């Protein structure tokens, strides 16, 4: 049941056909990684009124984060990202319940972190934990909203086997990774917000536009291309699930 304050807060978005604020209020959404992608998705999901946000990151805020990680400011330097993110989100929308995981996701803690969540948002910055998230997503049947950025380029997808392919159908380990990934704020901002939009559609019971598809965003040429990602019959993850 929405309070009077919540009714007023969300009064503009409930005008959108098909919107259901109660469904958002009941939702449990996990954001893993509170960098550029996670800053964008977590802030907008909180503003939209997701009832319970589970936040996971073991990092502390550094000066070089502030070009793109909008959850933080100079006063956050040296502090735990998960604590600062909770404080900022609490100031934006105190009706959102926050579950904090001050940890880097790995194969030992993944199950505990994911427990109770209905959808996973990828805000990670390397491929290895993404494969762990993907594996858990396939195992538990929880949709995984993929996002990744580099320079001006970003990818986003909505993977939910067995209905769709999974991340391992698209990518394999062993790809080249620079020591320090080049990135500026607009790229994770754009991709993070697209991820948030897909989460909201899923939560509202609508079909996410990127279900089984991949968005390829290139900010340098301002192009958006969407391709189909078919299941790989030889996928080491979802073909065995």
């Amino acid at each position: 049941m929405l309070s009077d304050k919540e009714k007023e807060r969300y009064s503009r978005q409930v005008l959108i056909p098909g919107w259901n604020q109660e469904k958002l209020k009941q939702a449990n959404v996990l954001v893993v990684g509170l960098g550029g992608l996670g800053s964008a998705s977590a802030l907008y999901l909180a503003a939209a009124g997701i009832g319970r946000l589970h936040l996971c990151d073991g990092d502390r805020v550094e000066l070089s984060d502030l070009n793109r990680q909008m959850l933080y400011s100079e006063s956050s330097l040296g502090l735990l990202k998960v604590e600062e993110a909770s404080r900022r989100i609490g100031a934006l929308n105190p009706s959102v319940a926050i579950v904090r995981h001050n940890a880097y996701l790995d194969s030992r803690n993944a199950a505990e972190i994911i427990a109770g969540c209905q959808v996973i948002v990828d805000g990670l910055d390397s491929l290895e934990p993404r494969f762990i998230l993907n594996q858990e997503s396939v195992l538990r049947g929880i949709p995984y909203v993929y996002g990744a950025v580099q320079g001006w380029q970003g990818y986003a997808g909505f993977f939910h086997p067995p209905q769709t392919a999974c991340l391992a159908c698209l990518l394999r380990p062993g790809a080249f990774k620079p020591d320090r990934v080049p990135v500026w704020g607009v790229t994770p901002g754009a991709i993070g917000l697209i991820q948030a939009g897909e989460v909201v559609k899923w939560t509202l019971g609508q079909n996410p536009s990127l279900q089984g598809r991949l968005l390829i965003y290139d900010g340098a040429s301002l192009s958006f291309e969407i391709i189909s990602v078919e299941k790989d019959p030889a996928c080491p993850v979802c073909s065995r699930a």
Partner: protein
Amino acid sequence: MVIYLKAGGELRSKLQPDVDHFTRRVETEAGKPLSDILIGIGISPAFVAFAFKDGQLKRLDYTPSEGDIITLQPPVSGG
């Protein structure tokens, strides 16, 4: 046979386009997988995350046909 390769993002400079700013014409033997074709033109498959053709994902074991236009995408790992 001839195929056309395009590249997205940071991969563009490695491809050395010659048809236009994005596209390289490549002569290759029929029946070769894309990964071998890439090695043949000096691009390590580690620099290519995946490819697509006509809006469909193509993995690097895909065997191109005459006239294919294939876009290569780089690994993107940041967050």
